[in-house]
């Protein structure tokens, strides 16, 4: 099976079959990364542009490695959004890049909808590498891959996503993906960080973390942006840690086999205690799996099928 769409803009609207295809394909590519010679010729002769309007180390590097391991030519463009507001428009920049004949543009942008805007106007495949508070589809795919790998399935699992849900694209993509795959998703955070109507996306809302993690198979922590304190979303890091920080006592409320995840970068001692963070090898495995999942997405969007991979 292959992907029929030109772009990957979000998990919303994807079918369970499509998600499964990507995850299955990623399993094949994970092997490539484990080899001594970490390269396959799948995207040889293709040009991939990383167009990042927002700072990123992990995601950009992951996409770059994924492209290179598929033998594509990968170019990185990083630019700050503020200079773009005054200068060249997003579309002009993208059209100029496309005029140099590229096949795939990977976009990260602080404005929700920027990748969708480009996808409608460009011939190249567009992959959303995170847009505003909207979606971060490859992060959700790598999270689902990791859960499936560790727990053997997604269907029927209870998963708590904890933190600043309102400003999290990771949370939204995971809610869409996990519910589509049959998991039961709980979201937990202070009401100041809980967007209105989130339950209509298929998640149950909790504001007490101890209740939210009760018996769950997976706890997915969301990074707290400390600067949100200045606009009154929480009183301070100390209080946040005491009500919404993941510590050993809270881990023990979950199922015995609980998987603790974090998309990084972590604020140690705030949303996750060092004790928990260091006792959880899965967080680094998420990063490893990220490369494989992005290889799978790039491969499938460029017309590959999971039977060839």
């Amino acid at each position, binding site marked *: 099976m292959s992907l029929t769409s030109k772009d990957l803009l979000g998990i919303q609207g994807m079918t369970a079959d499509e998600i499964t295809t990507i995850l299955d394909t990623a399993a094949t590519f994970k092997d490539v990364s484990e080899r001594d010679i970490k390269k396959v010729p799948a995207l040889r002769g293709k040009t991939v542009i990383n167009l990042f309007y927002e700072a990123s180390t992990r995601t950009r590097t992951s996409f770059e490695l994924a492209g290179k391991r598929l033998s594509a030519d990968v170019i990185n463009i990083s630019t700050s959004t503020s200079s773009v507001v005054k200068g060249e428009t997003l579309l002009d920049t993208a059209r100029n890049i496309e005029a140099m004949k590229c096949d795939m543009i990977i976009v990260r942008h602080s404005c929700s*909808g920027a990748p*969708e805007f480009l996808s409608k106007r460009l011939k190249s495949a567009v992959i959303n590498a995170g847009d505003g508070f909207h979606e971060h589809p490859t992060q959700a795919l790598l999270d689902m891959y990791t859960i499936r790998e560790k727990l053997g399935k997604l269907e029927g699992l209870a998963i708590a996503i904890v933190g600043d849900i309102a400003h999290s694209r990771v949370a939204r993509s995971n809610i869409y993906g996990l519910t589509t795959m049959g998991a039961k998703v709980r979201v937990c955070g202070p009401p100041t960080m809980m967007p209105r109507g989130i339950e209509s996306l298929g998640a149950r809302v909790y504001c007490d973390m101890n209740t939210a993690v009760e018996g769950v198979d997976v706890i997915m922590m969301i990074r707290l942006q400390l600067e949100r304190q200045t606009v009154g979303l929480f009183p301070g890091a100390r209080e946040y840690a005491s009500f919404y920080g993941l510590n050993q006592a809270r881990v023990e409320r979950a199922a015995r086999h609980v998987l603790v995840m974090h998309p990084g970068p972590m604020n140690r001692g705030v949303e996750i205690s060092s004790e928990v963070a260091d006792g959880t090898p899965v967080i680094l495995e998420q990063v490893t799996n990220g490369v494989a999942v992005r290889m799978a997405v790039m491969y499938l969007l460029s017309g590959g099928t999971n039977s060839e991979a």
Partner: protein
Amino acid sequence: MNILIKNGHVIDPANKVDEQLDILVSDGKIAKLGKPGSLSTDGPQVLDAAGKLIVPGLIDMHVHLREPGFEYKETISTGAAAAKAGGFTSVCCMPNTNPVNDNRAITEFILAQARDASARVYPIGAITKGSRGEELAEMGELHQAGCVALSDDGRPLMNASLMRRAMEYSRIFDTLIISHCEDSTLSDKGVMNEGRISTELGLRGIPCAAEDVMTSRDISLAELTGCRLHIAHVSTAGSVGLVREAKKRGVQVTAETCPHYFTLTDEAVRGYNSMAKMNPPLRTAEDVAAIKQGLKDGTIDVIATDHAPHGMDEKSGEFDYAAFGIVGLETAVGLTLRLVEEGALSFSEAIRKLSLNPSAILRIGAGALTPGSDGDITIIDPKVSWTVDSAQFKSKSRNTPFNGWKLTGKAVRTIVGGRL
């Protein structure tokens, strides 16, 4: 020049006329109304209006004409042409130009630019200098220079004490204060209605409360000061309720809404459609229902467009960066007639909200087909089906969410001061 409009159906709420009549316009004034065929056809130019509605010239009390300062978006001349094309004989232009219309010189400039325009232009002055919300503008001078109302539209006056003083001071001239109700600490960096859709799209929301707390504040202040208050572009069920209750208590408050607030919901933003970005934002189906109810029961007195022209570059690109606002002059009649079609308003009520009511609130003595009054007349074909094509707009700008919409009914003639 004399014009005889024959065989049309006249709707003139002020004079309680709703029947087939001929109208004679002479020397720029309404001369006579009479039974079909009763008026002399000698001399005057004859317009056959069979099957059409003859109504008082429509008045849009909330437009942005962008001149001076933003002539690439619109000028007084192109804005007035758009008004005429949409059936409006008069428009009131908001002061958020550059420089802001906060002094007599700018008001006089606008009036001078409007002298040869194809529709009447009534300026609205700023409440505070530069609409900065810090100190009062010369409200008396603005009033004398010809401003029909005062407003800091687009830059809500957050300082409640200063708003109180402005309202008190306005009583010297009995000037209308128009409030753009938005608590900017609540709307903050929001770009659309806060709710399920903003959560899905990951866009910052503007809660209904941002509008309602300000509506509530200004109603309280109007009650305190006895000023005449008009609430601009009501978009929420909450504000409809607040205005309804205030009117019951006898507060001197009136209100307007815009066609987009009774036609669209925040669903229109899906796909990051920047043509659906405006302030206040499009709300939910419940708000739309409340606004229709408010129009029907008289809580909302006026339909205005908040015509807000912007260049295409300002309306494309990232949704967060796109400008707020849409043009409305050339789609308002067609969209309002949808309300008549669905039974939410009668023709007569709709026309009243587009002519007589704004005239009465602004005290400009228009909005009626009384013999002796200005020959401002709009002829509407209520049956004609047409497709909105923004490329054909007389406005300089094309920013409308209604492009491609099929509408029934439009203004086919707009007569301003007896001129075709």
